[in-house]
């Protein structure tokens, strides 16, 4: 117990005075960029939805596929990455006694690199020289500047990851033998995944750049695609892990309860980190050049991620029930009424969690061989990730923003904004039900993803899809309204809300909780196990793809 006295002065000061202004501005900048990306990406999304439904024609100088590339890049990469980093740097600052000066510097360098990289990537998109989607499958070749931009984004992310590791290592040195606070533990897991998950895409981009510049003639298409999905799949699960952190730690506090077993929470994080990267192949289930046995192995790896998610589901509902019963809720379901449904900080993540029930089930469907074949590359997939990323993750982020932004700006959440938030959440949910629902359904009928409005020469089957696409457009319009409200709320809370103190909500563990074993802190071992699993998943197919490679493909520009 000696170590308890070691808590540094800054840490105490932080608890009393709130976040230091220098740290706050880092997180605020990240969040502002995130929500700016949401606004622009949302507008582009609306244009697409309207075009897809045949209600609106895009001009030739800014076509559907350009819009789609930008929409994907802004929302999948910028919004989520910037929000996650902003959120977790606030966590690190709050949990671990303020950021170290060098960590702060690293966060700023990372910020600059990412913005610079992003600008580099966007210019060719606007010039219609990089209309390759955010998945940029070779042999489609964009302008080399696009890929160089991506390199800077990855380097920026790595900078932030190392900032986090430095901060955590420093804290542990000053607090020997103690467990890293749970949210910082989540941050460590997320940054470990961000770092290792982006290595494959970095390799892919380094393969592409000399090829796009014309220094080498051909490229191995399948290897590039495999490397992309080793990263792409990890990425979505990183956002998911970020959302899960709020569910485990923040939501129980907001409903006035305690959080679920600390040990189990850490085990879930470890499992999500260890099992994540090997799951990428379920995006390639119907690709040629990968043996059926290897695909089967990967079905296993993909489904394994379902296990910690199901553990999470149990944990959450257990916390809800316990808390509500303590408040006098009775019967099998009536305790449900005791939850603070009128509080947007609870409502948004709660709906997010509920959305993950069909979202996760859809995910299991897609990662299973035969079912994947039915829905692969149809609108179903788009519906799926608008349900998981667009609802589960983003709605949790929205919920976080209602306390994180005022916490950072030393302001308070007013009842009016809370009400606006509740309305926003309902609009968002309705919009997503329309949009994701229509997408799932029309996908089952065979409508392909990533295709601008077409009737395929007035084909009867294609014409029968139109009514569903119309629902998609309605959903998209509602979502646009939701985005405007959300961005307004964030700007208001950041700059105009009344001054005051907002608490960083972190729930306590149960009183009689069992002690968490110390091995959970040994990240070195966890990372080695993760690398072994990655090797198990990727050595076989990559050796096959490289040794038995067909002659490579030259670059194509098909837009």
């Amino acid at each position, binding site marked *: 117990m000696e*170590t308890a006295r070691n808590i540094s002065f800054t840490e105490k000061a932080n608890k009393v005075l709130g976040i230091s202004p220098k740290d706050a501005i880092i997180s605020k900048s990240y969040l502002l960029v995130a929500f700016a990306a949401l606004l622009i990406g949302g507008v582009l999304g609306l244009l697409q939805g309207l075009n897809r439904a045949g209600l609106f024609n895009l001009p030739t100088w800014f076509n559907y596929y350009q819009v789609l590339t930008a929409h994907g890049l802004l929302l999948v990469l910028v919004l989520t990455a910037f929000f996650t980093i902003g959120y977790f740097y606030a966590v690190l600052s709050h949990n671990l006694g303020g950021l170290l000066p060098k960590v702060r510097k690293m966060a700023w360098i990372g910020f600059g690199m990412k913005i610079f990289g992003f600008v580099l990537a966007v210019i060719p998109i606007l010039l219609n020289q990089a209309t390759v989607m955010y998945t940029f499958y070779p042999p489609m070749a964009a302008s080399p500047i696009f890929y160089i931009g991506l390199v800077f984004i990855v380097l920026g992310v790595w900078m932030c990851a190392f900032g986090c590791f430095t901060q955590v*290592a420093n804290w*542990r*040195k000053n607090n*020997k*033998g*103690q467990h890293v606070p749970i949210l910082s533990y989540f941050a460590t897991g997320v940054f470990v995944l961000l770092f290792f998950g982006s290595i494959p895409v970095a390799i892919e981009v380094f393969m592409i750049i000399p090829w796009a510049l014309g220094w080498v003639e051909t490229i191995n298409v399948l290897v590039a695609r495999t490397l992309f999905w080793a990263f792409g799949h990890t990425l979505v699960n990183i956002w998911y892990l970020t959302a899960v952190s709020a569910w485990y730690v923040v939501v129980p506090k907001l409903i006035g309860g305690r959080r679920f077993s600390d040990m189990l929470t850490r085990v879930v994080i470890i499992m999500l980190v260890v099992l994540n990267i090997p799951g990428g192949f379920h995006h390639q289930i119907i690709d040629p050049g990968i043996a059926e*046995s290897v695909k089967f192995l990967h079905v296993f790896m993909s489904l394994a991620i379902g296990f910690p998610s199901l553990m999470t589901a149990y944990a959450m509902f257990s916390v809800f029930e316990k808390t509500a019963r303590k408040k006098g809720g009775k019967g099998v379901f009536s305790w449900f009424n005791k939850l603070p449904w009128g509080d947007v900080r609870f409502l948004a993540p709660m709906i997010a969690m509920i959305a993950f029930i069909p979202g996760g089930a859809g995910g299991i469907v897609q990662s299973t061989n035969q079912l994947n074949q039915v829905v692969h590359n149809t609108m179903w997939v788009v519906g799926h990730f608008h349900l998981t990323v667009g609802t589960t993750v983003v709605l949790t982020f929205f919920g976080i923003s209602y306390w994180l932004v005022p916490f950072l700006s030393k302001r308070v959440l007013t009842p009016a904004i809370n009400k606006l938030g509740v309305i926003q959440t309902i609009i968002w949910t309705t919009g997503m039900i329309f949009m994701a629902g229509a997408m799932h359904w029309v996908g089952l009928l065979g409508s392909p993803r990533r295709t601008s409005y077409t009737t395929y020469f007035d084909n009867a089957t294609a014409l029968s899809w139109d009514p569903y696409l119309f629902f998609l457009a309605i959903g998209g319009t509602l979502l646009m309204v939701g985005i405007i409200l959300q961005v307004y709320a964030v700007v208001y809370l950041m700059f105009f809300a009344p001054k005051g103190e907002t608490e960083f909500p972190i729930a306590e563990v149960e009183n009689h909780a069992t002690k968490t074993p*110390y091995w959970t*802190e040994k990240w*070195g*071992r966890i*990372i*080695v196990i993760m*690398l*072994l699993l990655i*090797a*198990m998943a990727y*050595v*076989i197919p990559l*050796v*096959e793809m490289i*040794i*038995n490679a067909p002659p490579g493909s030259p670059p194509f520009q098909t837009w």
Partner: protein
Amino acid sequence: MNQFLFGFLLLVFLALPPVANLLESIMIVHMHMQMPLLVIAGFLMAYYFQKKYPAFFEKWNQRGYPGILLFSIIMIYWMLPRAMDDALTSQTVEIFKYISLPFLAGVPLRDSWAKLTSFLKNIVIISFTIMFIMMGLLYIAWPEQLCNNYLMIEQITLGWGFITMAACMVIYLVYNVLIDPMQYEGLAE
């Protein structure tokens, strides 16, 4: 007791003919998945034996040397290309695999690992790393099929599998050298 049960179930599961056939049909899975899983099964079951015969382990494996030696010998034997082929063609060798890996490698590994000093642990890891690198290079570079039951491409894959395993162990060793646990763990444990 739970651990013994899990280990035993794992062993039974691995011994089921369809599972065994599937795992043995791919060379790298045979060596780097089935065999380690068998060792893990033994590792889990060891707990029961340690509880049941504490005197035996105390007497004959006092400092862990004989145990780790036995573990290494069994592992080396199963790294022979010959052994893998024999396991597929001869029933006796296959049965020997299911006995030797859990009980002669997994059990002594658990008992010995707890008794070895960290210096010796590192020595063991280093020797296995060197062995894995050499086996890896052999499998990658050898111009002929080393195992009659597996294709050349599988052999190369297995070679790279060895190299990646070795790389993981190197990372672990570097981590052990660079990071002093005393700096982080203190005396609280």
